């Protein structure tokens, strides 16, 4: 095998490297190099890396760490926003229960979302340090990084970083001279959106079909290979050293007051904006700040028609909603999820019907085929959208789409894929119904 070449690779996410960053305001990204190249072990250590892990493992109990993370209010950064500390405290422990596994969900496949990729490619050791701490807090015996198959460069980087850490005694038996032993294994997925669903991820990790599992039992009770398993997103795990270094109060103060959030968040804006990219920003800033100050507003000649706050599975908002804070509570005001907080601007040149056809084709294609609503319902929705888009639509098609959306809600399908997929469709039908109806004018009349 040819040795991996790491030098002189153009960074893929230049914007985040181009803003002024400090350890105080940008705890996740201040260690990034301006040139976008990977921060390897030496540089990471020079920048204070692994100090938190070493001190915490030596002086704190797992319970201390769990408590601290819980108090800090660190929420999962994968999209669902569940409190990491609560998740950890629910992990089964006790006599007769096998030791836990820690799994990093790096199967970042939400359309328009690439924040984990940036961390994986440029700051792999922050993730490793976070995983050591999370592993210790949950007394996990082994950690797995389930990486999206298409993240080929990230796979090379993480593999090398794990090697570096292992060589430095930061992974393996008796980490940094403590009693705690923990090792990491990189698993590269075969490329399915559903693998980002934590239980489908566990099935895929075990070598089974990537179908989600029913909950309960939750992964914390019985996850990978039947063991209690903690599954956390890359960004969540990268926040763990930050929380433990500075403490809960400091961490909470990073977010905008009254946002109901803690810490910073990697957010972004894509679409026909002037400066698409991702940035580390205080949790709870308004979407307008992100859109105008960071992304620079729309490119000349384009008008903002709608936007999605955090990935293809979040609902659409209108330009007047830009003053909403980018937080769970803020989005909840409109009945939406924040998702991954990597927003998408839809400009006036885009047909909503065509966009929805594109989005739903993706979700239908990525359905695992386990449950009926997702497997059959999304496929039907795609056919309807395709007909509307191509001028083959019928008046009843729009009602049919609404009916389908109504039956793809949480609890109806087996996992969250179908409800997520139906969310943009539901909001688009509500906000841009005229565009759907306009396609009918082009439709040929029905045969008598």
């Amino acid at each position, binding site marked *: 095998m040819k040795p991996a070449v790491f030098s002189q690779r153009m960074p893929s996410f230049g914007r985040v490297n181009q803003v002024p960053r400090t350890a105080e305001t940008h705890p996740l990204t201040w260690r990034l190099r301006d040139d976008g190249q990977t921060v390897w072990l030496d540089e990471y250590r020079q920048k204070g890396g692994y100090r938190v892990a070493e001190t915490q493992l030596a002086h704190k109990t797992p319970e201390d760490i769990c408590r601290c993370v819980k108090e800090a209010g660190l929420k999962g950064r994968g999209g669902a926003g569940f409190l990491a500390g609560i998740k950890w405290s629910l992990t089964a422990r006790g006599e007769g229960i096998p030791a836990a596994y820690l799994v990093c969900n790096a199967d970042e496949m939400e359309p328009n979302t690439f924040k984990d990729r940036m961390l994986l490619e440029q700051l792999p050791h922050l993730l490793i340090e976070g995983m050591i701490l999370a592993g210790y807090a949950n007394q996990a015996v082994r950690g797995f990084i389930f990486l999206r198959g298409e993240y080929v460069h990230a796979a090379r980087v993480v593999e090398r970083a794990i090697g570096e850490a292992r060589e430095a005694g930061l992974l393996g038996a008796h980490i940094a001279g403590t009693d705690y032993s923990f090792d990491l294994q990189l698993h590269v997925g075969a490329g399915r959106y559903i693998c980002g669903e934590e239980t489908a991820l566990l099935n895929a990790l075990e070598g089974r079909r990537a179908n989600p599992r029913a909950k309960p039992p939750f992964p914390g*009770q019985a996850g990978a290979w*039947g063991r209690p398993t903690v599954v956390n997103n890359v960004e969540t795990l990268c926040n763990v050293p930050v929380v433990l270094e500075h403490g809960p109060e400091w961490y909470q103060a990073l977010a905008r007051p009254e946002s109901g959030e803690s810490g910073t968040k990697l957010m972004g804006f894509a679409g026909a904006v002037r400066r698409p990219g991702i940035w580390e920003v205080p949790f709870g800033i308004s979407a307008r700040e992100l859109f105008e100050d960071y992304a620079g507003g729309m490119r000349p000649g384009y008008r903002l028609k709608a936007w999605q706050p955090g990935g293809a599975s979040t609902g659409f908002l209108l330009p007047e909603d830009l003053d909403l804070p980018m937080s769970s509570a803020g989005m909840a005001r409109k009945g939406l999820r924040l998702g991954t907080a990597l927003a998408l601007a839809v400009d006036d040149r885009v047909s909503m019907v065509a966009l929805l056809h594109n989005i739903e084709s993706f979700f*239908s294609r990525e359905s695992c085929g386990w449950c*009926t609503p997702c497997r*059959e*319902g999304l496929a*039907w929705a795609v056919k309807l959208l395709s007909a509307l888009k191509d001028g083959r639509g*019928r008046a009843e098609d729009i009602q049919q789409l609404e009916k389908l959306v109504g*039956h793809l809600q949480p609890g109806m399908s*087996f996992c969250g894929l179908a409800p997520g997929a139906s969310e943009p469709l539901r909001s688009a039908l509500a906000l841009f119904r005229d565009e759907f109806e306009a396609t009918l004018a082009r439709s040929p009349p029905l045969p008598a």
Partner: protein
Amino acid sequence: MASIHIDGKTYEVDGAGNLLEACLSLGLDIPYFCWHPALGSVGSCRQCAVKLHKDESDKRGMLVMACMTDAKAALRHGPEHKAWISIEDEDATAFRKQVAEWLMANHPHDCPVCSEGGQCQLQDMIMMTGHGQRAYRFGKRYYTSQNLGPFVAHEMNRCIGCYRCVRYYQDYAGGTDLGVFGSRDRLFFGRETDGVLESEFAGNLTEICPTGVFTDKAYEGQFTRKWDLRYGPGICQGCAVGCAISAGERYGTLRRVENRYNSTINGYFLCDRGRFGTGYVNRKDRPRKIYAAHGSEWHSLQERNGSEAVLADLSTKLAEKIAAERVIAIGSPRASLENNHALERLVGEEHFSSGVPEEELKRLRFMARMLQVAPLPSPTIEEVEQSDAVIIFGEDLTQTAARMALAVRQAARQREVALAQERGVAAWQARAVSGIGQGAKNPVMIASPAATRLDDVALHTAHVSPSNLVALAQRLAQVLVAVGSSKSDAAEAVLSDLEEDEPWVACAVRVLLKAERPVLISGEAMMSLPLLEAVAACAAALHQQGKQQGRLALLPREANGMGVAMMGRMSLDAAWKRVQRGEVDALLVLENDLTRAFSPVQLKQGLAQLEVCIVADHQFTSFAQQADLVLPTASFAEEDGSYVNYEGRVQRSYAVFDPTAMAGEDEIRPFYKWAADIRARQADMPQGCDTACDEEALYNELVVDHPIFAAGRGLSKQCYAPVAGERLARQSPRASGRTAERANLSVWDKGYHQKSGSGLSATMEGYSGTEGGAVHPFAWQPGWNSPQAWIAYQTTPGGPLKGGELGVRLFAKRPKNVLLCGCDEDELLKDSLSEGGVAGSVDHAAFADKDEGEGLEVVPLYHLFGSEELSARSPLFAQRCESPYVLLNEQEAHERFGDDLAEGASLCLSCGTQSLILPCRFSETLGRGQVGLPVGLGGVPRFWGRQRVSLERVAAPLCEEGRP
């Protein structure tokens, strides 16, 4: 008991299981697909949605899948828990309708040409949801289906993606060649490429699949709708397990065999021999009239006036021979108790033989004796499934008692359930159980001469020759006793010493001592009484260890082997000796192909001494072809009869149809009727006068002569309609055209033949509800046309039938005072069950492969497809039957016959004056000094088993029969 509140009504429930099970057992209809009583819940189809309300104030409620919701969540206990559920809720109803519409989006509208039609769960459930108007207006997806062999048809376009097939095939039955491919709305359930499904239980796919993806090819070849079938509640004739079947007929041909649910034996599943091996009933070349060979004075009669005259003359002449004691009658282990008994009465017990060879009869009597006196009782199939350790001696269970092999797989899988339950996950949570269990298995240990089909679930297999198998079992009993009587430290020391030299024994001892409900299984396969004795000794040792919940299963070969052994009487060899000695003029053989028991020379010697050889059979067996007179008898599908299975359970199999109804000239009758006629003529009485004609009276007559069967009296009470004056209908209430059924033969509505005593009606007229006894001819309830209707007959889904267990265990109470007729008291047991449980000590040298005597030891091998004689006569089934071969240790084969010996080369086996020429196959597991021979397969006679033979290489087979 707790209460549950559903749509305004309160019901008492036990709170076990999930909400779907709770509702279904209350008789409330909720449609479902992915759930199955035998497979548990996975929540994939989303069809069983109901509304769950937390309390009275919760008006909105939450849509939940009933199959994935613990029934406890909906229970009402105390003032805090006032949950209630609604099936009729508007949202729930709309969602269920929507799911139905989704499932139908791609389902083809080919119901008119689909053999599932009329018994299709999809049809039932779609009706239940109320979905009728389809809004889907796009094209349907299309698949190319596969050829899965002669038994199971595949039409993937009908698939609704419920996943039940793969969950059954892979998880339940351990198959590896059927899987799910693809994802999203392009799922494919099938094999990687076309080919015969490997599992011996593949036929169950036809009932597991809720629609017509997997259908019964045997049935398709002679298809008729379920509502046109006349069903008979039968007992499978394929082996000694005695599974309950529903066999369906129309226009005088047996159309299909379905599983007949019962919780103790076959549950929801049959093996493929049972399901597809009954084609012999429909063979055109069956004896249908009295058939007489020319050339003897016994048959000149035929030229006079047909069968009446033949019978009259036969009766007179037979009476003379009986009076002169110059007659022998040979019964059959594949004939019912009643038929054997009728034969015995006809000629007198002194002249009746059970039709089982001497050595086999000894073993059968030992098994029968064990049912009464063995320290551990025989397990039901259900008990095998629930056991926590299984040790199998000598049987390739999948080939000899397949349904039990499937049960052993479940026993192994129970470990996962136990592990999940430790973690608070219920058994019905199928995927969570396998996620936690991670394939953990209860220990299954196998000692056999070569690889078996259960090796994949076995913890430890030992491949030893039949004689060493005996030593191994004896050794196990000995160590069990030794270890049991010593302190734990000492016991541990003994076991660790054994670990190296006798790892299998050491492992088995550990397994047995740890188990709470161990099952020991052995049987007729190795044709070895010492093996049975040694296994019984192991059972005795287990009993001594306080393992009272342990079980001992000893398996006869044939459906009624246990029954004829219990009747006692002389062996086949003893009878034939009398024939050969010329002590007999007339020989009467009932349903027994003697060419499988004797060599052609022996047969010829015997037949030459006879004046007449009369065969009563429903098949023209090789032996029947040599007879002077053949009486056409009824197959299981045409007569009532009782059979005793391996656990001493008498079960009654009921006729499906009257073979004379559609073909008036046929003379097929149950043998007991022929016997009654002959007796009536002898006594100069009107026909049938002295003989009872209903099945209960026949059985009572049997009990008079054989009190051992007394417990089976009153079996007919299991088959009754709970409505005065009614009988159990044998056709669904949808059946039509009874009066037109014979219209092509006669415009007179003669009515279907109706026996006087039976609790069964012959038509759709009668009771078809779920109450009554354990016997139900078929499963059908209003709105439930598919086999899923069985749920209505069960106390809880997948639980016992409302009518109780099928059949009666003769020795359920294990009385000490009933003796087997003709069984030499305890002589057979003296050694194996004496104080201490084990006779003498075992020479360790027994474990070394000993070279005792000349030549090679024949190891009998078995095939589910082909080793059993009747099923092998079924044309479709025969497609799966292999041709006979000889199996050799690969290395030894090359050493003996050179490296150029390839598989398929011809070898000649010789033993005395007998020889067989067969193609060879190689085995990696069969030991040296042995040759594997599939007895029964392709007519290879059973006397070859356990011989010592010499082996030569020959150029090519001299003739196809394998006989030079």
